[in-house]
């Protein structure tokens, strides 16, 4: 067992990045809308259960200029 401890340490160091990558790795999203593609429309409830429709956000009432949307998906369930 002369090299036992070093072997274990080296093994741990070698596996550490893989373990970290594994825990933070995400699935591929090949069908996620690409740049230039139409973003799929949807209607979902906000925190007050009021339905919000993506396509209705582009033309805010009382505004001549169309609006852009920064759509942010987050993990939740924390």
């Amino acid at each position, binding site marked *: 067992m002369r090299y036992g401890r070093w072997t274990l340490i080296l093994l741990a160091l070698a596996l550490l990045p893989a373990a970290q990558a594994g825990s933070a790795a995400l699935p591929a999203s090949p069908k996620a809308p690409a740049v230039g593609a139409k973003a799929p429309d949807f209607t979902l409830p906000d925190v007050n259960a009021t339905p919000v429709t993506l396509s209705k956000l582009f033309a805010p009432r009382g505004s001549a200029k169309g609006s852009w949307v920064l759509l942010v998906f*987050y993990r939740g369930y924390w």
Partner: protein
Amino acid sequence: MRSFQKDLAKLTARGVQVVTISVDPSDVTKGLAAKQGYTFPMLSDTKGDVIRRYDLLHAGASDGADIARPAEFLIDEKGIVRWRNLTEDYTVRVRGDKVLEELDRLGR
């Protein structure tokens, strides 16, 4: 998301609305918004339908629950994606200043 809240006035000035989506139910999201002071609309996709349609489902990711992988899309007034960020690592988040940079690049 704290970063988007911090830069919300700048984003609004560029004519960009921030909207978020997660699988969390409305009451959980409402609590988060109140705690963090988020003022942008936060939507609930409890069944993951929209998350699935955007191909962003991370199946069984959180205690076996299906959740969204983090992703950001800049969508123009015609509904076209102008920029997107699909992180490969959920510990690395895009920030508001990066989005403002992209808006500069896109002439918005």
